[in-house]
C-alpha cells in the first residue's frame, strides 16, 4: 500500500515537473485585440504559435471597453489598441510597461457603399448627394470616426451632411449599417472591405485626416511572461508586417 502511494506521489510529482518545464519553454499569453484588427491578428497569432511554440489567446472587442477592463484588473498581457490615446493612457496610469509602446499598423479610411457606382473614385458623391444616410463611427470613441469627420470638414461638407449622419458606436457597427443597406454609404476601415470586391469605394487620401495609428503595448501583467514579449517582437517582424499590409493597413 505504502509503495503504491509512493509510486503515485512520484508520478504526480513527475507530471508536475514536466508541466513546469513545458511552461517555461512554451508559455501562453492573453491578448486584447481591437475589433478592426481581428482577421490579421488571428493570422499573425497562428504564425506566431507555429514559429515559437508559445500560445496566444486572443480576445476581440472595442478599445474603449478593453481599456476599462484592463484598468480594473482584466488578465490581458498585451493590448493591441485601435488608437494611440489608450495605450498612452495605459502607460501614464501605470498599467503598461514604459517604453514598450509602438505603432503596429496605420489604418486607411475608405468611403464605401454596397451599391456599385454610387461612390466614385474621387469621393465627389459627398458633394453631389443622392443618398439619405451616411454612416460614420462615433468620432469620440473611434479613430476612424474622427478621421471621417476631419475628412468631411476638410472637404467643407461637414455642416451640410450633418443631418444625414448616422453614428455607429464602433467601426464594426458602422460597417454593419452600410452592409445591411440601412445607410447607403459610409466611412469604414479599408481592412474591413479590402477582401470584398463588390460595391463602390473611394480610398480617402492620407493627407485628409490625422493618421490612424494603432498602437500596441505590453501590460504590467505580462512583464514577466516570455510569450507576451515574444508576441510583441513577432508583431514587429517582417512576417507579421506582410500580413498586416495584406489586410489594408500601412506599416511604418
Amino acid at each position: 500500500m505504502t509503495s503504491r502511494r509512493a509510486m503515485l506521489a512520484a508520478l504526480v510529482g513527475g507530471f508536475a515537473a514536466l508541466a513546469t518545464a513545458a511552461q517555461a519553454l512554451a508559455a501562453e499569453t492573453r491578448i486584447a485585440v481591437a475589433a478592426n484588427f481581428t482577421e490579421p491578428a488571428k493570422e499573425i497569432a497562428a504564425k506566431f504559435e507555429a514559429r515559437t511554440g508559445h500560445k496566444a489567446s486572443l480576445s476581440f472587442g472595442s478599445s474603449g471597453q478593453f481599456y476599462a477592463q484592463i484598468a480594473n484588473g482584466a488578465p490581458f498581457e498585451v493590448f493591441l489598441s485601435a488608437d494611440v490615446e489608450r495605450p498612452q493612457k495605459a502607460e501614464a496610469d501605470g498599467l503598461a510597461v514604459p517604453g514598450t509602446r509602438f505603432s503596429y499598423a496605420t489604418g486607411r479610411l475608405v468611403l464605401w457603399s454596397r451599391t456599385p457606382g454610387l461612390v466614385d473614385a474621387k469621393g465627389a458623391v459627398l458633394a453631389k448627394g443622392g443618398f439619405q444616410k451616411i454612416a460614420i463611427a462615433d468620432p469620440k470613441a473611434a479613430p476612424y470616426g474622427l478621421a471621417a469627420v476631419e475628412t468631411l470638414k476638410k472637404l467643407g461638407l461637414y455642416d451640410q451632411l450633418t443631418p444625414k449622419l448616422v453614428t455607429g458606436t464602433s467601426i464594426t457597427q458602422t460597417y454593419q449599417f452600410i452592409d445591411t443597406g440601412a445607410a447607403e454609404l459610409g466611412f469604414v476601415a479599408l481592412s474591413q472591405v479590402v477582401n470584398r470586391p463588390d460595391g463602390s469605394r473611394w480610398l480617402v487620401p492620407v493627407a485628409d485626416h490625422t493618421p490612424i495609428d494603432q498602437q500596441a503595448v505590453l501590460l504590467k501583467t505580462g512583464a514577466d511572461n516570455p510569450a507576451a514579449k515574444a508576441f510583441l517582437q513577432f508583431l514587429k517582424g517582417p512576417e507579421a508586417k506582410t500580413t498586416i499590409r495584406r489586410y489594408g493597413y500601412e506599416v511604418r
Partner: protein
Amino acid sequence: MAEVLWLTLRLAGVTTLVLLVLATPLAWWLARQKAWWKEIIGALVSLPIVLPPTVLGFYLLLALGPRSPLMIPFQAFGIRTLAFTFEGLVIGSVIYSLPFAVTPIRNAFEAIGERPFEVAATLRASPLDTFVSVALPLARPGFLVAAILTFAHTIGELGVVLMLGGGIPGQTEVLSIEIYKAVEALEWDKAHQLAAMLLAFAFAVMLSLLLIERRAGRLRP
C-alpha cells in the same frame, strides 16, 4: 442632456402605450385558450427574454432595412428604411419588451379563475361586457405591473437601440446609449452620473412593483 432624458421617457412612454394595447388581447387569448398549442404562441412571445438584444437588434436592422420585403409597402410612401428613426426604435422596443407586458397580464387573467365568468354568464352578460366589467377590473394589478415593467425595461434597453439607432440626437440617442458612449470615450465621470440616475430610477421602479404586488395580496407578510 435634457433632450436625451426627454427622448428616453418618450420612447418608454410610447412603447408602454402601444404594448398595453397589443398585449391585452394577446394575454386574454393565451389565458382563456384551452388547447395545448397556444403555448407555441406563448413561447414565441417569450423569445426576446432569451435572445441577446444585439442579435435581435441586428435582425431588426435587416427587417427594417431597404432590402427587406417587410419594407416594400412603406417604400411606396418614400420611406426607405425605418432604421435610425424614432418609429423604428418604437417597433424594436415593442418586440423586445413584449414578454414583459404579456406575462403579467396573462397571469392576472388566469388568476381570476372560472367563477366570476360563470356568474357573469348567469347574469346574461355579453362576452364584451364580461371582459370590460369583470376581467379588466379584476386584472388591474397585472396591467400596472406590465406597464411599469415595460416602461423600465425600455429605459434600460441598450442592445436593440444600439444596433438600430445610429445615435441621432433627439431621434435615437437615448440614455443607455449615452452611458455606453461615455464609457467608450473614456468620459467615466459622465458615465457615473448617468448610471447613478438610472440606478435610482430602477430602484424606484422595483420598489413600486413590490409594493403593488403586496397590495394585490400576493405577498402577505
